[in-house]
Every structure is written in C-alpha cells, then in structure tokens.
C-alpha cells in the first residue's frame, strides 16, 4: 500500500530516462535546496523536541496552575494550516522572512507531535521508582534526567521525527517566508512545466533525504524500556514559585501559535463587513469531520497491526514497514495526490473522486503520525500480562481484546487524534481527490486566502480549531484507573 507513491514516482521518473534524473541532481540549486530542506528538518525536529518535552513536563509533572485547560489546547496548533500562521506573522511584520522564522513557525506548529505522546507516557511513569529515587535523596532535576527522561525518550524522539519529516514536506510557510527549499523546487517544476517526470525525480530525492532523517532518529533515540510493572502513576512535582514562570512560558507559546493567528484573522474580518453563512460553515464542518474521521480510522486499523508487530516481535520486516510508512510522511501532498489520481482514474474508476479514496489518501499521508504513539503504548504493556492471559487459556485475539486494547487505548486514541487533526487541514491531495462539489473547511479556506479574502477565511480557520478541540478534550481527561491512582496518592 505504501508502495503506491513510490511506484508512481519510479514510473514517472524513469519516463524521461535516468540521465535527466542525474542531470537535475547535479544542478547547484538542487543541492542547495536539498541542504536547506535537510537543515530545516533537523532544526525543526530539535526545536520541537525541546519545546514538546518542556510543555509535556510542565503540564504533566508540575503543579503549574490551569493545567487542565492548557492541556486541552495542546493538540490545537496541529489544526491550523501552517500557512495561516505564516500569513498572520507577515501581517504583523511584513519584513519577516528566511530560515529561522520558518523554523520557528514550523516548531510552533508541530510541537504537539512530541508533546502529546510524551505527556501520555509521563502520566504513566511508575511512581514507585520516583519515590525510591527521592528517598535516596535525588534532586528533582536528577529524577528528571535519570528516571523520567529514559522512559519518555523513545516517544519524544518519535514525535520529533514527525516534526522533521513534516518540515521536509511543508510548502505554505516556506513560500510565505520566501525560503527556497526542496519542496519549492518540486512545486515549481509541477506548476511551470507540467513535467511530472522531472518532478517525480525530485520526489524520489526527497524520499532519500527523509530516509536519512529517519536513520538519524533511530540512532539517537535509544531503546524502549518495555516491561514496567503497572502500578501507581501520576506523581506531581511541586516546583514552588517557578510555577508562575512555567505558566508564563506555556501561555506565551499558545499566544504565538494560536492567539496571534486568530487575532489577525478576526481583525481582518472586522475590517471588511463579510457576511458569514452559518449553514454553509456547518455543512463544511460536517464534510471535513467526516472524511478526516474515516481517514483516521483507516489509518488506525493499519497502524495497530504494524504497532503490534513492532512492539511484540520487532522483526526486520516490522521495522521496514514502519520506515516506509514514515518516509511517505515526508512527501508533499501534491505527490501523493497525483499518485492516487493516476491509480484511481486509470485502475479504480468507481472509487476515483469519492470520499473513500480521499480517506485512504489521508490514511496514507498521516499514518506516520499514529505509529509512534501506538507502538509505544503497546510496548508499555509488560509481556508478562500476555503470557498470563495465554496461560489462562485465552487466544491471541482474545488477549488482544481484553488485555492489550484496554490498557493501550489512551495511546491508540491519541494516535487516532493526531491523524484526525492533521487530516482536517490537508490541502493539495484533497483538492485533487475529493468528489466534485464536495468542499471541506480546508479547501474553502484555501479558496478565500488565495485571493486574499481573509475576511471570508477567518470563520473557516476558527472552525478548524474548534472541531479539533472536541476530541482533544476527550484525550486529556484522565480515565478511571488514573483517577483511582491519583486518589490513592492524595492528589485529588
């Protein structure tokens, strides 16, 4: 399934002969933009790692006030198309441009990839270990580095990888900030020459860069600690008056990533008296949510088997499967879109331009977002539980349903949520694969912003944020087991 875009790229690229491929590869601009993209990817991954872990720690492990509310906001930056954030920054200061501001925007837009899984793991950290550490006299900082970090490290790095791959595929922000990246080369090749073969060659090069990024992440992330005994969890560190600084930090981040764009959009709406058609927005919201829902579910149905394979069997095949799903994430939506157009129009005409193929495209594009959380939530379950269940006579299927699934479900649900939120704002593949006449919030947003009608655009952007906050609210409510644990530790 993941071979679809790859096959497409190989077929198109080879149409013009491989000399053309090497010709393009050797152009100075190609090399420059590849390096720029690669550098951007690394900086965004590192920045997102730092910011995401900080946010998760502050909201998950400290007694900073307003935690509950701030948690609900955490996935929301993923719901806003990054070009909207870029545009609003430009509206405040039209002189902004270049590498560092692009990196900053992308970090702000993708830190939830790190923050969400890290937070989920932090909430499950074995309290016994912490208590032992503290009785042994370790300072909070040491608890952090010696106990907490090793356990969340894998999930955090997986999230940082997603940020890095996203930075490779992203086009809107770098276009506004006038940064010449490799995706820009791909886009201009498609737009200017309709030469799908040259653009396909470039797509292959991008895949190779992303493979390298994935490889780097594997080297740095270390190994998971799978068999933790599941006991008390959820301890809170009291950090005294540092908590106000922490609160300020979190609020600043949310301001930069949510409040500022909202402010710009709303103020532009007020400048022009635009009529807001509520009926229209409701039906667009429904459409958007529907396809994103289907896409996220398909993605999850595919991610769970892969996660089980990785977590339980850790075979070469499982690792290969994961890697290939991840690098698809680095492909710009236009490439995956055209691959599916070619497939759909020529071989599956009854599915072409239906919401099912579109949902499948979303699953393909974003399944990477759920792999990390699914895998780490499955890894957390001690193998002993499986073995006990099997020795009591349950089959693997029953074990899965009655033992593994309930424990892993918060992680699985957050994986689903990540795909859902990012699918809602997807644009290029949606434009090509959606049924004619079927509009989503993201296509309507694009329609308005491409002719600078930002007043019309504002309600759509705000609606995107609102829908994203619904599942996000459910994600962060502690479930019953956690509530018991917290009561035990007299934290409620």
């Amino acid at each position, binding site marked *: 399934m993941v071979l679809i875009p790859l096959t497409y790229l190989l077929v198109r690229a080879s149409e013009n002969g491989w000399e053309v491929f090497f010709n393009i590869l050797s152009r100075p601009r190609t090399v420059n933009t590849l390096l720029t993209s690669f550098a951007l990817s690394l900086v965004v991954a590192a920045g997102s790692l730092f910011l995401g872990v900080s946010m998760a720690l502050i909201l998950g492990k400290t007694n900073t006030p307003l935690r509950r509310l701030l948690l609900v906001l955490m996935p929301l930056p993923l719901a806003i198309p990054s070009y909207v954030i870029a545009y609003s920054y430009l509206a405040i200061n*039209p002189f902004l441009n270049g590498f560092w501001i692009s990196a900053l925007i992308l970090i702000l837009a993708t830190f939830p990839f790190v923050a969400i899984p890290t937070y989920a793991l932090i909430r499950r950290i074995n309290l016994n270990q912490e208590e032992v550490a503290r009785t042994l006299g370790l300072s909070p900082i040491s608890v952090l580095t010696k106990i907490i970090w090793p356990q969340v490290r894998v999930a955090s790095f997986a999230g940082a990888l997603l940020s890095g791959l996203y930075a490779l595929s992203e086009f809107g922000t770098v276009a506004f900030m006038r940064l010449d990246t490799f995706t820009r080369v791909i886009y201009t090749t498609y*737009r200017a020459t309709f030469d799908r073969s040259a653009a396909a060659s470039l797509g292959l090069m991008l895949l190779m860069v992303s493979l390298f990024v994935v490889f780097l992440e594997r080297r740095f992330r270390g190994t998971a600690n799978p068999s933790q005994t599941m006991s008390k969890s959820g301890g809170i560190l009291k950090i005294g008056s540092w908590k106000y600084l922490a609160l300020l930090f979190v609020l600043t981040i949310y301001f930069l990533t949510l409040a500022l764009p909202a402010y710009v959009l709303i103020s532009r709406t007020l400048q022009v008296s635009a009529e807001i058609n509520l009926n229209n927005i409701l039906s667009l919201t429904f459409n958007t949510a529907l396809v994103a829902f289907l896409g996220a579910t398909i993605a999850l149905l595919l991610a769970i088997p892969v996660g089980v394979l990785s977590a339980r069997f850790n075979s070469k095949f499982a690792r290969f499967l994961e890697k290939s799903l991840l690098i698809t994430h680095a492909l710009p939506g236009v490439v995956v879109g055209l691959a599916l157009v070619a497939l759909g129009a020529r071989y599956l005409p009854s599915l*072409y331009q239906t919401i099912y193929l579109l949902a499948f495209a979303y699953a393909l594009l974003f399944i990477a977002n759920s792999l990390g959380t699914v895998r780490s939530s499955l890894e957390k379950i001690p193998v002993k539980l499986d073995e006990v269940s099997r020795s009591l006579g349950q089959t693997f299927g029953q074990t899965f349903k009655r033992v593994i699934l309930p424990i892993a479900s918060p992680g699985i649900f957050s994986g689903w949520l990540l795909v859902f939120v990012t699918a809602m704002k997807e644009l290029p593949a949606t434009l090509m694969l959606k049924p*004619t006449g079927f509009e989503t919030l993201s296509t309507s947003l694009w329609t308005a912003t491409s002719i*600078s009608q930002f007043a019309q655009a504002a309600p759509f952007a705000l609606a995107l944020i609102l829908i994203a906050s619904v599942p996000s609210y459910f994600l962060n409510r502690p479930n019953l087991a956690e509530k018991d644990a917290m009561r035990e530790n007299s934290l409620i």
Partner: protein
Amino acid sequence: MFKKTLFVAILISALTIAACSTSTTPASDESTTPSASAQSIVVYSGRNENFIKPYFDEFEAQTGIKVESRYGDSAELAAQILEEGANSPADVFLSQDAGAIGAVAAADLLQELTPESYAAVPSQFTDPSGFWTGITGRARVVAYDPELIEADDVPSTIDNVLQPQWRGLIGIAPANASFQSFVTAMRQVRGDESTLEWLKALAANDPVIYEKNSQMIEAIDAKVIGLSLTNHYYAYEVAESLGKTLIVKNGFFEPGDVGNLLNVSALGILSTSKKTGAAYALLEYLLSVETQQKFVSGTSEYAVLPGVNPPGDMPKLEDLGIPDVKLGDLSDVKRTQELLTEAGLL
C-alpha cells in the same frame, strides 16, 4: 466500555452517512444524447471559486445546465488532467493562463473548437490551432508606490528595470505562471540568448522574490519594496479583500514593450467529453457581451471581445500598447524555466 461503544456507534453512523451521501451525487457519466438536453457538465476551473461561481450559477439559471466544478491551481489541474488521461471526468477546462491549457492541448486531450463558437474573439487571443480560446484578458503592469516613485520616473521600458536605482526595490514572482508567460513572450520577441542576459542582469539587481502576486501588492503598500512586475487586477483585488484603499498604482511601459504583455484566461473542451453541446453553451455564455461586461466590472479583468469598456481607470485594450506576441506559443514554459534557473532566479 461506554467510550468504546460510543466510538463504534459514531463509526457506523459515519459510514452509513458516507454511503448515503455518495449515492446521491449524480454520476458524471449519465448517458444522455450529446446535445443541449444534457443536465450537467464537469468543469475543472483554475479560476478561483469565489470569482467564477456566480457566473456558473447564472449560466445554470439561464440554461438549466448544472455546472459541477472542481477548483484548483491551473497547473495542478492540468497535471491532474494529464494523469487522468482518457478517463478524465472533466468536460471543460477553464485555465487561468494560456500556458496550462497549452500543455493539455499538446497532449491531445482537447478537441478542436468549431470556428463559429469563438469567431468574435480577436485571433491574437486564441490558439492558432483552434483547441482553446481566450475568455478574459490579464495585462502585465509595473505596480508601484507613488509616494516613493513619481509617475514620470516609473521605468518606461523593461530594460530600464535593470537600472541601479531600483536595486533591492523590485518584487518579482518567478515561480508564478504569469511571470513565466512574460519571460516566454520575451524569448519569442528577443530570442533565448538575449532573454537570458536580461534575466541575469535582473538577478544582479537584487530583486525580492515572492511566491504570490498578492503578497507583492501588500509589500508595496507596506513599503517593503517599491515596485513589482505583476498583473493589473491584483491592485484592485487586494484592496477589496483588505477593505481599504491602497497606495499602489499600476504603471505601464512604452507601447509595444514586451512588458505590456496581455495574457488570457482560456477555455478548452476535453476530447473525451460526451457533453459537447452543453460545453459549447457554456462557451457561448462566457463570450456573450453581458458576461464579458460583468468580468470587467466584477473582477476588474479585460474582456476579450472588442468594444467592451476597460476595467476601472485602466486604459482601453487598444491603448495598452500590447506587444505583438503569439499567445499560443506561450506554453513552452519548460525552456523558460531552464533560463530562469540558469539566471539564478528560480
């Protein structure tokens, strides 16, 4: 347990709703006789929905033919049609510029239009081989900041843009189709070598590179740059969407200068379409005098029909000083892109 059941319930209802809603969208290959009794046509439109949909709605009110329209970037739509090939559901391609539609024509995916259907359009705005026709005109201009530059000091020829006083002040959008059409036109008039020299000299003058034309207009208004090579209607479009008057003004080069290129939005009918009758009805509607006048007053574009008034305070079509360029040949954008890359602008 409750959460899981809720989740499953939502999933099942979502699937049912999805199945129902897709079964009510009409199949695009209803086999009716290819005459004007066809109920609907599928249009792939590179023209923005907010601009063109009112026209489609009026067309439906007048003729009863429903337009099912798909919107996107003209070049991406062209790439999509090329990928779809003979299985394309599109009947009509409405492109924002001549380049994109030229590529589709070159792949033999358009049918030759009957001469009567576009007889009223001057030949300089149509495809010499007859596969597409222009619908509206888009003039290249030099947009500028009148507080910084006096009207008389605006560069009078495209070569004057290369002068040192404009260093770092010029905005261009080299990835944009309109700019590339302009460079292709220059190649037609001056030849590839001379064009490459001009591009290199421009690159040496530190132009500020943008992705979109509307960005450049906003940049002029914010005084980030002083002038830009763009299309005439962006000044109106951006002013309207921001809801305020901009300082930006449109300036022109000497008559006949290649910088005054007039590009066209164009319509072609797919050769695989079974609804040619309805497609020609749409063409007739778009080329009618009333509709052409609406293009002028509604979106500030030029009409291709002679005798229709120009938009806003723009000069008449005849007075624009358009260079003598064959629009049909502007689809050879590949070589243009190579030159731009060689000059370091792309």
